[in-house]
């Protein structure tokens, strides 16, 4: 992926460009959570499975730190999508 061109789409589900991510970082939103919430990157159908690592790389590049030093966000369930009508039928005990 071209991480030089600001028009590059980083998150395909929510249609977010590299330029938008960089703009958020420039304004001081430097954690994965803040960027997700503000730009919606990683909030679409695939829930960031495709773009999460890319986002970490971009934040790291912009802040000149290592991707392992970027503050992580929490992965939220469910890990596969489930239709509401199925959930409505199935009651399971939590444990």
């Amino acid at each position: 992926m071209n991480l030089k061109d600001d028009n590059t789409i980083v998150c395909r589900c929510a249609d977010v460009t590299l330029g938008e991510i960089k703009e958020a970082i420039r304004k001081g939103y430097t954690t994965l959570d803040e960027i997700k919430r503000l730009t919606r990157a990683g909030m679409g159908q695939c829930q960031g499975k495709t773009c999460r690592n890319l986002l970490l790389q971009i934040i790291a590049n912009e802040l000149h730190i290592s991707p392992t030093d970027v503050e992580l966000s929490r992965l939220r369930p469910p890990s596969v999508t489930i239709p509401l009508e199925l959930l409505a039928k199935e009651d399971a005990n939590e444990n």
Partner: protein
Amino acid sequence: MKTKAAVVVIGGGVIGTAIAYELTLRGVRDIVLVEKNTLFSGATARCGAGVRQQWGTEMNLRLSIGSVKRYETLAEELDYPHGIEFSQTGYFMPVYTEKQRQQFEKNVSLQRKFGLDVQYLQPEECRSIVPIVSLDGLLGATYYDKDGYLSPFHTTAAYAEAAKRNGVCIEKNTEVLGFTMEKETIRSVKTNRGDISCDCVVNAAGGWSQEIAQMAHVTLPLFSERHQILVTEPIEPLFRPMVMSFTHGFYTQQEPNGAILMGVGDPHEPKGYNMDHSYHFLHTVASLVTSVLPAVGKARVVRQWSGLYNISPDKAPILGLPKEVNNMFLAVGFSGHGFMVAPMVSEMIAQMITNEELSIPEARTQLDLGRYDRGERIVEPSVV
């Protein structure tokens, strides 16, 4: 970080950032806002962001009507080019019992006195507003097309960025640990990144506000409670307004991109700070919502999360000073509907700090903490 400030605002949610901005409008300089995590990381980031004016008491009507008016032009006022995504697609509140019908009719006549053109719909009219609503047991609904919702993230970012431009220092990852007190006065705020001496403090710490107050030996009659929420994949447009059923306890909204948001309170939820999510919630909200809106059953859940309601005895906010401390202004206890009143609340807290008359003068004696000691309450019939 600064070690001295006129005002220290605690909390980087919509309430804290809006108060910081409102203070700058009144010429207050030297404001520091401290947030233990990042901006919009508390309830503000997790909320349904619905904004309704269909309330049943004069105070709640004033708070919400004034706030909606401000939200309508806030993006321009704050010079926030992205916009705050305010979408006035209405609130639809179905009626299922005779008692509810009488109450809602009373509410509508009060709402109309306040200039809101709220409609009382007969069952057969409901489908012209929500085509997919089940008519099972439905006695009618109220509907107001100027209610709606907006982006909690962009709204908070817009307030925060305007506050910053006006000179406010926003300190993220800065946790308040305690206060240095002199009798009834807070002299400085202790944080994990050092102390800030100050003239006054604003407690806008959301679900943690009672902990902050306790640091100044003030016991607030508040508790926090987890509320869960989910969002589905986008599907074709099915309904426009927020649908909020007091009978079932849920609210649900389809966003412009087609994703459907929904939440429901759990009467058995214990008090506390738990922010996990449960399967029980998925099942409950799915069965309740699909019983009223069967067509949403095919939507697939992509994410669930939760946040804290900060609940007061009458489910109305507490604004102003406690009697024990003369410089800690409270903006707390929003009981699950603080986002929709943020503009009015923040304006009035700033007015209190600068000794101006309040936009709603009665708020001084009706929303203060002392009301509970005096045995007074806001008696709101229309709250989930």
